[in-house]
């Protein structure tokens, strides 16, 4: 039956060449763990993406209960974690995923570094990768404030003090992120907006560029 549906759509829209172009390639021997077990290091990029997808999905579901407001944020997180079925699991996915995504990204970067894959013609993909790295750090920073507990509050206070130490621009950067003079109501709404809309948007655009370049240039050759 699925074949029937597929053929019906394909006759009208000719979708086969599209997905073939994206997905139908041989995996070169030197990146296939079935040939050389050590090639598992080539999986870290895909694992980073996998966890990123989990972050985006679990984050979308968290926003069904979460409220970015200084009076209610803590209570809403407490509620979604302890009263909502599987709340502990969904929050834990997001909580642990946030750290794991950094670990995977780091391992992926090590692989790229030690296989020399950043060299010509792939320099631009290294640069895009670095931008993705900074976006991830931004997501970690802005997400960490959202539960609005003591740990969140003081971690953000300290981070903004670090931002303030930037020469000349520091105080402006701090005030802009603060959304005022203190870490308060406007900081929380600001961080929420940045965490769930601005940075994920930028992240998806950069990932698209990352994958487009990989597709164009292919995976780098064996050592």
């Amino acid at each position, binding site marked *: 039956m699925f074949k029937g549906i597929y053929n019906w759509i394909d006759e009208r829209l000719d979708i086969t060449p599209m997905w073939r172009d994206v997905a139908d390639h041989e995996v070169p021997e030197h990146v296939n763990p079935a040939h050389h077990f050590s090639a598992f290091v080539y999986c870290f990029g895909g694992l980073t993406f996998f966890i990123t997808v989990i972050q985006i999905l679990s984050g979308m579901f968290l926003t069904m209960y979460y409220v970015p407001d*200084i009076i209610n944020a803590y209570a809403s997180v407490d509620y979604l974690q302890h009263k909502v079925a599987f709340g502990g699991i969904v929050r834990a996915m997001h909580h642990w995923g946030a750290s794991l995504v950094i670990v995977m990204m780091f391992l992926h970067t090590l692989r790229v570094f030690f296989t020399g894959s950043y060299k010509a013609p792939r320099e631009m993909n290294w640069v895009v990768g670095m931008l993705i790295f900074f976006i991830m750090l931004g997501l970690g920073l802005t997400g960490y404030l959202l539960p609005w507990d003591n740990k969140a509050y003081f971690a953000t*206070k300290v981070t903004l003090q670090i931002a303030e130490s930037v020469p000349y621009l520091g105080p402006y950067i701090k005030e*802009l992120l603060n*959304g*005022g003079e203190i870490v308060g109501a*406007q900081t929380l*709404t600001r961080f929420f907006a940045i965490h769930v809309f601005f940075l994920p948007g930028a992240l998806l655009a950069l990932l698209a560029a990352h994958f487009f370049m990989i597709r164009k240039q292919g995976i780098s050759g064996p050592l």
Partner: protein
Amino acid sequence: MSNHEHHDTAHQPVHRKEMTRRQFLAYTLGGTTAFLAAGPVLPMVRFAVDPILTKKTEGTYVKVVEESKITSEPQEFKFQIHQVDGWYESDPELAAWIAKDDQGNIFALSPICKHLGCTINWNTQKDNQYFCPCHEAKYTKEGKNLRVAPNPLDEYDLKLENGFIYLGPVKPNTKV
């Protein structure tokens, strides 16, 4: 004949600095696009940076304690300020360590550790110094940073009126 001089050049192609049709259209389209983009973008940018551009509320002074209570030994005094945080207004309690220096001038220090922001205390180590329990920063009575912390303790702006001490905004230490 004055026309004579121009005669030779009359048949040469004229070199005027002129714009091609294509360039003209490119500039027009570019300008229009920039204008159309600026329309929605400017309001959004101004919206986002509003907190830095709004006028800061003038530091108000709060009555804290009678002048006669102050000794050369620092003492902690609590006071409430009125705080406007976006759409929330509250009256959080702040603390100040107030003392007289050797010349008898009264000064008030902020209890927020300049290392990473924990709360300091006077003389808990029996050495007549401020001490921070978090990473063991120490400060002199005037707030000079002796260890761990990179800067001296902040100071409150202070006014004396009718025998009362009024505290204002926090500023960098002026005693050390």
